């Protein structure tokens, strides 16, 4: 009878883990109702002694009644009995639920459709659990549907599942197992175990208490280990299975593909589990190009942002070519390419077009306008999702001479502005890095070189922040970060050196799949653009590429340091993943892409933090582990010293001598049963280990003293002295093997056993908590109810769906990111 209830509780417990997927809580009460209905149906079937197939047959009917009553009472007969209309309405709601789930990322709003879908799903799980656990009596198998439910939040959420939720879910399952075990035992017991004499009521049921207790203990220990071990050992995986603190569920999940935010939070994009396709494109020369969405030109000390955009009607892309690229003078050779871009249907709201820089011409449906100064193309009305457009780009291909002679604009103040309060060491660093550079271009190359090679940076998605403080930390201290930090830092350093700079947000060129290039969520990227008069804005790439960095990032050929032997050639660099080399613009073998080179040399392109070499790290780690392992030995020494001191201080020494003797024996593996009396212990040691006459005397002294102390009316006049214990220890140790002695010194069992006893004490507390019977609870609740007579009960459990809070849509910015 308890089993159906335990099954329902288990399902309800796992349902709790769905919490971060929803906004609001009404879905939960609907689900609890569904579980309740299923459980009641199951329990009733059990109570009536129905055949096993009855419950699975009846329960769906009960669930249908319940869903009808909750979601479509108006159309139903007597508000609960399904009619044709109500079924149609339910189906509609289900359909809209599916649509909503496709549309929204977690946490999803509390729409009736979604709530219905969830409640029906949970009811299904509850039914399966009931079938497995109660009807088939395979409680362990009931874990499978529960696990299926549990994987929903685990798969959808980018954040790990909060450990409290996991604990609740796990306890639900363990409760089911324990109940099943108990019921099984009691049944088995009744058939086989013969009653004890007297036939008292107590003798009727076998004592399953102890077994249930051990089951619970194993369960509690397993859960504690599952939570604590990954938390204590962060090295096991970069993300422990469970984050501490319930996740708030940011990041686009579900069917939606996130788009990078202008106020960059690229880390979220890059860390996402799912790697959805954002767009695909073909290009006339089959060369991958970075696609820029935003250009951030203001650094206010906390983040990079973009100046207000101005899209004048005459700058509509449909009106003709885009405004000319700023700073580009005639005479610089240009490379013209045409790209056809297809945006994915599933992307978040996006009012900007991902374009190569500088775009000359864009053919796209809708009212798309170009910003004059940055050449960003945006729309206030149309969205990019599903759009297909054509873009023509004319990339400058400056020669080395042109680059060397390029100067910076005197009137580009806007791109040189930096906030006050920037760490002066950053500027000093920038000057030091670019010390050998004669021209702005050489400074830029030195900077990029420093970021990618000499600076020994580590690509690490766990870094965060782009403000002045994060910048100092990134540059001066830990040197770990991802594209956001690299791009921001290089832009700031360039500005410090007097080179106009800005940060672009968009995508790398992606990967070639079939004929087209595919750009995915993980290709989201940030990079700096530096301005050189006569040439315009040029892209640089300080972020490491390859396996240990941003996968598809590539360094522009013009930004590579020039080796004296190489002829200055021009052209875009090869695509790292395209495989086929574009012979026309390829950088010669004498001037290989440094990242490529690194990648060829060894799998991990990025060197470790130079601060502490790996060997030292290993040493520190090993020392820490060693220290941890030696803790018991240290504790043993301390205890021994304290006891011996107590022994010298007081005449009889209290029980210290005995306790020490027991520990010595435990450490040496000579401990006896707890039923061994002092005298028996002395006899056993004397007989089995035959200590020397002096040690035997000492042993007898300790034993007699303890015996008198415990049981005699007056303790003996003279007790053992510390020398006695030392003698015993030395003598007995000499009778054992060397390994045993070593173990006794390094890993003393006496301390470990005490640790275990402490652990069992903790488990006992759990047992006692469990001992607070539900009855106690119920009486307490009833008393509270009585005290509250006349007050209305709080409105929990209503299945109405509240309006979506108006504020939740506020973060829909022009940039189109929805968080």
């Amino acid at each position, binding site marked *: 009878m308890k089993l159906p209830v335990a099954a329902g509780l288990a399902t309800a417990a796992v349902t709790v883990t769905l919490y971060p997927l929803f906004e609001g809580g009404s879905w939960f009460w609907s689900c609890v109702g569904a579980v309740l209905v299923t459980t009641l149906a199951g329990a009733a079937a059990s109570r009536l002694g129905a055949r096993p197939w009855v419950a699975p047959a009846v329960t769906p009917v009960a669930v249908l009644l319940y869903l009808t009553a909750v979601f479509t009472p108006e159309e139903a007969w007597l508000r609960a009995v399904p009619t044709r209309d109500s079924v149609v309405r339910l189906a509609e709601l289900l359909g809209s639920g599916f649509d909503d789930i496709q549309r929204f990322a977690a946490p999803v709003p509390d729409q009736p459709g979604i709530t219905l879908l969830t409640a029906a799903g949970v009811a299904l799980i509850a039914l399966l659990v009931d079938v497995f656990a109660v009807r088939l009596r395979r409680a362990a198998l009931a874990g499978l549907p529960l696990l299926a439910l549990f994987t929903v939040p685990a798969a959808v959420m980018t954040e790990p599942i909060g450990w409290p939720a996991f604990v609740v879910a796990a306890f639900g399952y363990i409760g089911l197992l324990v109940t099943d075990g108990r019921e099984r035992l009691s049944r088995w017991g009744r058939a086989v175990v*013969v009653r*004890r*004499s007297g036939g008292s009521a107590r003798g009727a049921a076998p004592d399953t208490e102890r077994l249930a207790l051990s089951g619970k203990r194993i369960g509690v220990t397993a859960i504690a280990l599952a939570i604590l071990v990954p938390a204590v050992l962060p090295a096991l995986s970069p993300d422990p299975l469970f984050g501490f603190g319930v996740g708030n569920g940011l990041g686009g999940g579900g069917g939606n593909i996130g788009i990078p935010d202008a106020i960059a939070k690229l880390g979220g994009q890059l860390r996402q589990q799912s790697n959805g396709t954002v767009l695909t494109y073909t290009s006339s020369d089959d060369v991958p190009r970075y696609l820029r969405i935003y250009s951030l030109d203001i650094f206010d000390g906390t983040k990079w942002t973009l100046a207000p955009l101005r899209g004048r009607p005459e700058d509509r892309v449909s009106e003709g070519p885009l405004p000319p690229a700023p700073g580009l003078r005639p005479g610089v050779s240009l490379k013209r390419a045409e790209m056809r871009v297809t945006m994915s249907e599933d992307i978040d709201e996006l009012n900007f077009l991902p374009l190569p820089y500088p775009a000359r011409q864009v053919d796209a449906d809708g009212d798309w306008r170009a910003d004059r100064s940055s050449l960003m193309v945006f729309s206030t009305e149309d969205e990019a999702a599903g759009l297909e457009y054509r873009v023509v780009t004319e990339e400058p291909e400056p020669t080395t001479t042109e680059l060397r002679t390029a100067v910076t604009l005197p009137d580009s103040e806007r791109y040189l502005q930096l906030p006050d309060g920037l760490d002066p060491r950053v500027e000093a660093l920038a000057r030091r890095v670019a010390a050998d550079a004669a021209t702005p271009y050489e400074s830029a190359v030195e900077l990029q070189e420093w970021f990618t090679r000499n600076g020994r940076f580590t690509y690490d998605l766990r870094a965060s922040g782009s403000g002045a403080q994060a910048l100092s930390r990134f540059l001066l201290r830990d040197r770990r970060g991802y594209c956001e930090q690299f791009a921001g830092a290089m832009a700031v350093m360039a500005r410090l050196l007097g080179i106009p700079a800005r940060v672009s947000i968009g995508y790398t060129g992606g990967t070639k799949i079939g004929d087209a290039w595919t750009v995915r969520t993980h290709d989201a990227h940030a990079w700096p653009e530096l301005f050189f008069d006569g040439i315009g804005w040029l892209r640089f790439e300080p972020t490491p590429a390859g396996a240990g960095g941003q996968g598809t990032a590539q360094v522009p050929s013009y930004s590579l340091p020039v080796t004296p032997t190489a002829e200055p050639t021009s052209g875009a660099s090869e695509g790292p993943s395209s495989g086929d080399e574009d012979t026309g613009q390829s950088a010669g073998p004498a001037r290989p892409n440094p990242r490529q080179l690194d990648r060829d040399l060894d799998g991990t392109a990025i060197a470790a933090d130079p601060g502490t070499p790996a060997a030292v790290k290993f040493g520190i780690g090993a020392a820490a582990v060693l220290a941890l392992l030696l803790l018991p030995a240290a504790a043993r020494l301390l205890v021994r010293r304290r006891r011996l001191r107590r022994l010298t201080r007081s005449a009889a020494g209290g*029980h210290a001598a*005995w306790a020490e003797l027991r520990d010595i024996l435990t450490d040496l593996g000579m401990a006896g*049963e*707890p*039923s*061994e*009396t*002092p*005298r*028996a212990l002395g006899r056993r040691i004397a007989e089995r280990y035959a200590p020397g006459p002096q040690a035997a005397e000492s042993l007898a002294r300790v034993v007699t003293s*303890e*015996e*008198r*102390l*415990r*049981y*005699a*009316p*007056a303790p003996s006049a003279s007790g053992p002295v510390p020398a006695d214990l030392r003698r015993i220890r030395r003598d007995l140790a000499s009778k054992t093997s060397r390994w045993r002695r070593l173990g006794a010194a390094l890993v003393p069992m006496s301390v470990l056993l005490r640790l275990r006893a402490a652990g069992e004490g903790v488990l006992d507390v759990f047992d006692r908590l469990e001992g607070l019977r539900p009855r106690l609870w119920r009486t307490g609740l009833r008393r509270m109810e009585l005290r509250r007579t006349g007050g209305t009960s709080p409105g929990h459990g209503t299945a109405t769906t509240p309006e979506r809070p108006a504020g939740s849509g506020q973060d829909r910015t022009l940039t189109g990111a929805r968080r």
Partner: protein
Amino acid sequence: MAVTPDVTDAAARLEDLVDTAHRIRNTIESVIEGKSDVVRLTLTVLLAEGHLLIEDVPGVGKTMLAKALARSIDCPVKRVQFTPDLLPSDITGVSAYNQQTREFEFKPGPIFANIVVGDEINRASPKTQSALLECMEEHQVTVDGATYALESPFMVIATQNPIEMEGTYPLPEAQRDRFTAKIAMGYPETAAELEMLDVHGASQPLDKMEPVATTAEVAALIRAVRAVYVSQPVKRYAVDLVAATRHSPELRLGASPRATLHLVRGARAHAALAGRDYVIPDDLQDLAVPVLAHRLLPSLEAQGQRRHAEQIVGELVRRVPVPDAK
């Protein structure tokens, strides 16, 4: 702390006790060869003011032991041979009409002695067996409404054949519970048996036995035993041991509170015989099997596995932890 007002006096009495007990033991062992454990336990029961049940197959010296103990103490000893037709009045005594005084007169039965040897006690009918009940527990006899006090010290040494033997009535639980301890003689070892042939072959050694202690001496010994100190942890241990028999799934019937009492009394005597004026858990452990086992009923499963109460108690003793100093 101080239980005995005069420590030196107590020590002297203890010395006396050990001395006297040693003499009695030596005397008995001159008759019963190679059974010092049994003799020691017999003495323990005597000093603990208890009664002893000796169970074994015929011919191993049960009666000899009982007689030897009785002889070694200079006190009235009666022997009753239990037979199926024995009546309760044959034990307690009868009121007979005296023609001269024209009054009913109580003729004391064999129970009125310091040591009563009941031979083959389980051959008598339960009715007769139960006549012993009142005597053993309360040291008094009630006949026709009049109550007569028994001698002090008073000890019943009963012998019985194993209950599986032909023509026996097993002792009721209530009566078994009244015996402080049950011992089995066991067959003698080869050397002891050889020696026995030499000693017993020619003459009856019992006849040559001289008493080595008086009733008054034994009474003093018993008083000394009562003064032996039992600490709180030891009492606790005794209670734990007995409680363990009540909770063991292998036992249908656990030991009674009277068993606890007997156990602690026996432990006092055991300690005193060792010349100790305080009880240690070892005393209890040594006595647990003889004092507890005969009162217990193994469960049917345990019987099915041919496990005897002695084995079960032995295991319980190994399992119950000795109380710590706390």
